[in-house]
């Protein structure tokens, strides 16, 4: 007997669109064994530094296999407090204002679940990380996309924020530097955004996962601006800066009542993050900074290489101030960004992700991740140049 299993899927889940990234992944997966150079990844090419891996092995040898406190190991929270204070200039109490999560993704989900009532409106800048809109939809809240533009190097502006604002907006999600655009805001731009948030009584969820990979100037956290710490949930993690994506460790810092509410959801759903990964994260904070700087310097040179080559090829591209993504425009290529990405993959075996996967404002752009070796980047750029040449004929 055949049963229509689909009818059991909740309406709001069935209504979620499939990730554009997923479609493209399947296309690339079909070309296995064909010497594809992928600039389609969203993670470092470096393996986690050995001293961090070794700390996890040591923890296992010592029998550290238990649950931890729901908030995370206190030693780790203390180290996080120290790190955030030193690098972001904001102080949090390790006992009550920091929650260790399974990646920043869980922290985002927790914050939205803890804060949103059905129908609340959540603003986020777009193009943005693929999960922002679905995470908002999953808590029955409404997403309000705020466009960012190539002319501003994809920095979020207070003007765009004001233009997109509608009554009922409660939260603003920030991701600066941004995946996929590499866009970020300087202090002046952030101050204008902060003033707007205070004016409209918005709570800020600030996902600063790429902040260590800031190549020019210093990264400013919105939480560090006057009057903002009390209305900001600062979200961060280890995946990008410490090359620890697979460990799944992130954290949220914020006012105690908010962290407490998030912790409630966390304790009933996740209980705690893996103790082994927490031990590794602690080692990363205590002794990992040199590795972070070395990796950042390499990303910096790789960025300069791809941005220069892309512009020479006619893929107009600003130099992203942070992250490891270039977000060039395909407007000179005479085809849509989707056709460009598919054609480039078929003809020259280079994978980039169509910008439309990151929201409507990503149209006409592709995301190219430069977390790949110099040799691969050079070959990839040569292939892209050849492909662009065939399009212009």
């Amino acid at each position, binding site marked *: 007997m055949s049963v229509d299993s689909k009818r059991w899927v909740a309406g709001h889940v069935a209504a979620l669109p499939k990730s554009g990234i997923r479609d493209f*992944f399947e296309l*690339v997966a079909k070309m296995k064994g064909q010497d594809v150079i992928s600039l389609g*990844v969203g993670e470092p090419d470096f393996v986690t530094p050995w001293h961090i891996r070794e700390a996890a092995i040591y923890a296992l040898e010592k029998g550290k296999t238990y649950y931890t406190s729901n908030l995370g190991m206190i030693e780790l929270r203390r180290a996080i407090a120290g790190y955030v204070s030193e690098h972001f200039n904001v102080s949090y109490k390790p006992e009550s204002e920091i929650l260790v999560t399974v990646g920043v993704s869980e922290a985002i989900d927790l914050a939205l679940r803890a804060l949103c009532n059905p129908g609340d409106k959540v603003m986020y800048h777009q193009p943005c990380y693929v999960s922002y809109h679905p995470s908002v939809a999953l808590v029955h809240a409404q997403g309000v996309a705020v466009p960012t533009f190539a002319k501003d190097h994809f920095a979020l502006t207070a003007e765009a924020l004001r233009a997109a604002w509608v009554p009922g907006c409660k939260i603003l999600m920030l991701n600066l530097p941004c995946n996929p655009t590499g866009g970020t805001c300087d202090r002046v731009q952030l101050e204008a955004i902060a003033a707007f948030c205070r004016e409209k009584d918005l709570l800020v969820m600030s996902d600063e996962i790429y902040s260590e990979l800031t190549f020019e100037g210093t990264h400013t956290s919105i939480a560090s601006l006057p009057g903002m710490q009390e209305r900001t949930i600062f979200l961060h993690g280890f995946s990008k800066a410490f090359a620890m994506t697979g460990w799944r460790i992130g954290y949220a810092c914020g006012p105690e009542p908010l962290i407490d509410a998030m912790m409630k959801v966390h304790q009933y759903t996740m209980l705690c993050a893996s103790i082994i990964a927490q031990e590794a994260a602690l080692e990363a904070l205590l002794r990992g900074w040199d590795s972070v700087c070395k990796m950042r310097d390499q990303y910096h*040179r790789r960025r300069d290489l791809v941005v220069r080559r892309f512009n020479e090829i006619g893929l107009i591209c600003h130099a992203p101030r942070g992250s490891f993504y270039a977000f060039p425009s395909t407007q000179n290529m005479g085809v849509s960004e989707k056709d460009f990405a598919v054609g480039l993959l078929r003809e020259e075996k280079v*994978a980039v992700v169509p910008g439309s996967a990151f929201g409507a404002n990503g149209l006409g752009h592709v995301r190219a991740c430069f977390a790949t070796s*110099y040799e691969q980047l050079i070959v990839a*750029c040569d292939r892209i140049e050849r492909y662009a040449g065939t399009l212009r004929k």
Partner: protein
Amino acid sequence: MNPVLKLLLEGGHLSTAQMAQVVGLSEAEVQQHLEQLKKDKIFLGWRPVLDLSRAEAAGAAVRAVIEVKVTPERGGGFNRLAERLARFDEVESCYLMSGGYDLLVFVDGSSLQKVAAFVSEKLSTLEGVLSTSTHFMLRSYKEGGFLIDQNEASSTRLTVTP
């Protein structure tokens, strides 16, 4: 800092053409930087990193580390003797050390006998050498920054991720 030197410090193994691409200079300019670094005796030269335990690569099948105690000279300290020692072709590297001995010498040879002969006939008979202690290397696990016979799983990275 010299942009080429930065790349060299990464432990890179790029060709001059690739270096030119990475730092955004012409090949000729990269070459010029390399020449300057050579002139300044910062960049001493290129060498391949080989796994010498492999039969195909066994040009120098025997490697030894020798601890050498010497009498420092008035005026010259350890330098004169160390510089003299370093000139032997058999000596791959030579360092002045703190601690229980003075010089640490890495020696390559095609056979055990040749290395032993070098130590007994050349090294220990040098004026100023008080004693030597020779250790033969049995196996290499890491060579010049490269792991030997250990696979890193970085190739398992997915091709497209958010």
